[in-house]
């Protein structure tokens, strides 16, 4: 069953050196991505969901950031051992990324055609004419009306939703094996978000691309993902297939998170469930469970030691002392 693992991240640790101390943004994250699968990474701001994936792409600014330990194996080959030239050939070709803000990730001075043709020529070795044809084709695929004309426009001539479509077209233009989508719809309105999610879902299925979807929105992952990792303070606290996670969440944090979102389909007035307290500061975090100050079921041991991963069934994992004891 391990033959279709595309990307395997093992014990990744990314730390940032700051004046206040060492920020352990990602602290021992491991996960696997299978062929054609959509993996969701959920968590609140500052939990390390973006940094873990930027690390995989070797896009962490260093200094202050540093990948302290771990491996990112793309078909068994460690990305962290590659030279920067080799990684550059990887990015945009075998692993593509789309970001939250489509305005800042496109060059405002260059026409869409210039930016897309550059990527395609570099990675696919096509000549200018073919590359442009391919670019128009991709724009058509993501539903940009009149792509033959629009391809020579500048980014500011597109609306937010259209820009995100251009980003997707660009990211998929080299048939990557992995698409990392970092909050691709958080800056967009709901009706536009629905359009964009539909496109991502359809195109990646058609092209067989595996997707890592990073988001804070539980609704988005529920609709699009097969498997979900929940992150808290730099660690993955729970890992489960999408149905299990939503219908039978195990970790107290996951349970709280799911319960604290108001739901359209199950209206209820009155008080919402809420997790008391604040997310922890990840500077010089002691070796305890970072969630224990907010956890209603915290045990003594939670204050002293970080819980190891406990497997529940075949496909699920949870890091919590409640599941270690007595099982």
């Amino acid at each position, binding site marked *: 069953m391990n033959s279709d693992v595309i990307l395997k991240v093992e014990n990744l640790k990314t730390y940032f050196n700051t004046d206040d101390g060492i920020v352990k943004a990602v602290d021992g994250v491991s996960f696997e991505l299978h062929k054609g699968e959509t993996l969701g990474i959920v968590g*609140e*701001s500052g939990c390390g969901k973006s940094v873990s994936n930027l690390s995989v792409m070797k896009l962490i600014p260093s200094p202050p950031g540093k990948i302290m330990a771990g491996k990112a194996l793309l078909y068994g080959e460690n990305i962290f051992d590659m030279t920067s030239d080799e990684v550059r050939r990887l990015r945009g070709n075998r692993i593509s990324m789309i970001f939250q803000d489509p305005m800042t990730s496109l060059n405002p001075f260059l026409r869409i055609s210039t930016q897309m043709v550059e990527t395609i020529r570099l990675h696919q070795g096509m000549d200018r004419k073919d590359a442009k044809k391919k670019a128009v084709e991709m724009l058509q695929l993501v539903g940009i009306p009149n792509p033959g004309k629009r391809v020579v426009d500048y980014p500011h001539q597109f*609306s937010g*939703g*259209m820009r995100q479509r251009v980003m997707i077209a660009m990211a998929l233009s080299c048939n990557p094996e992995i698409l990392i989508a970092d909050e691709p719809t958080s800056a967009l*309105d*709901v*009706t*536009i*978000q*629905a*359009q964009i*999610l*539909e496109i991502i879902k359809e195109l990646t299925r058609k092209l067989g691309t595996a997707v890592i979807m990073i988001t*804070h*929105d*539980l*609704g*988005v*992952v*529920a*609709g699009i993902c097969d498997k979900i990792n929940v992150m808290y303070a730099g660690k993955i606290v729970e890992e489960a297939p*999408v*149905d299990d996670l*939503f*219908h039978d969440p195990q970790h107290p944090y996951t349970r*709280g*998170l*799911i319960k*604290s*979102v*108001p*739901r*359209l*389909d199950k*209206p*209820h*007035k*009155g*008080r*919402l*469930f*809420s*997790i*008391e307290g*604040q*997310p922890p500061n990840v500077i010089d975090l002691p070796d305890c469970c970072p969630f224990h100050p907010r956890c209603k079921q915290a045990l003594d041991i939670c204050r002293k030691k970080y819980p190891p991963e406990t497997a529940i069934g075949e496909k699920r994992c949870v890091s919590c002392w409640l599941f270690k004891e007595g099982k």
Partner: protein
Amino acid sequence: MADNNILLEVKNLKMHFPIEEGLLFKKRVGSIRAVDGIDFVIRSGETMGLVGESGCGKSTTARAIAQLYTPTAGEVIFKGRDLCTLPKNELLKERMDLQMIFQDPYGSLNPRMTAGDIIAEPLTVYANRKLIDMSRQDIRKRVEELMEKVGLSRFFINRYPHEFSGGQRQRIGVARALALNPKLILADEPVSALDVSIQSQILNLLQDLQDEFKLTYLFIAHDLAVIEHISTRVAVMYLGIIAEIADSTTLYKKPLHPYTKALLSAVPIPDPVVERKRQRIILEGDVPSPDQERSGCYFYDRCPNAMADKCKNNIPPLKEVEKNQQVACFLYSDPE
């Protein structure tokens, strides 16, 4: 209907911003019609939700009500007086009962003031003008009381905004809005910048405060689930007009306007089983620019049910179609 219960009445409110060209001799070449004629009432004790996509005029509406902008046209009748025509000192008095909470907990607090000063500011402003009778000791006591009310320790009184987290900062904003014991609070996206676990804390706080102080809210958000949770009535805005107003339960169970339907179907629901079964109405295209005067329905370009003649050439008025449900759409009424 006991209409002496009406706290705020907005009549044909319009807010147009000029588009100017030229460096030295500015010439008005057009206008952004951010709010283009809206009517609604808010009754005492209710929470009116205002929902819509970015650029539809929700925030502008709140700001025009608070007279932070001078409306282009229309009336804002608060407790029986039209705020748009009041002289400045009278307006100041009326505004004691009308306060705002803003979206950005980072941008809406002065970084050079302590939490205590920020919360005290409305009190000092009114005390200096002799509109309220409070000494400095009274104010300090009131600030401490307010901090405890919103769930902040009063030992934080001398801290600066950067020392607080986003959720705590929003609590400071709430305390500041409460300082003058207002009747109506205009909350402009108060939870949009917050994480899920913090968002539910703030929503609960707002509800508790409403019960305790008999507050009335105009609650603005783009998140339909949040609006559903907190509101008793909901108005859906599109391109500067109101497409539909109804009781919250009615609107979510039986939306009438095609835009409301599409909007509701686009919201992702955190449940994979429900998500797989859902039929989405995916709207084509983007929201058009509000810089043109419209002669037909504002939603015509994107409406899946648009009727060529009727909708293109007539503007549908907001009409009561069902009990407590007003819709601006020709599917439910004919042009006159």
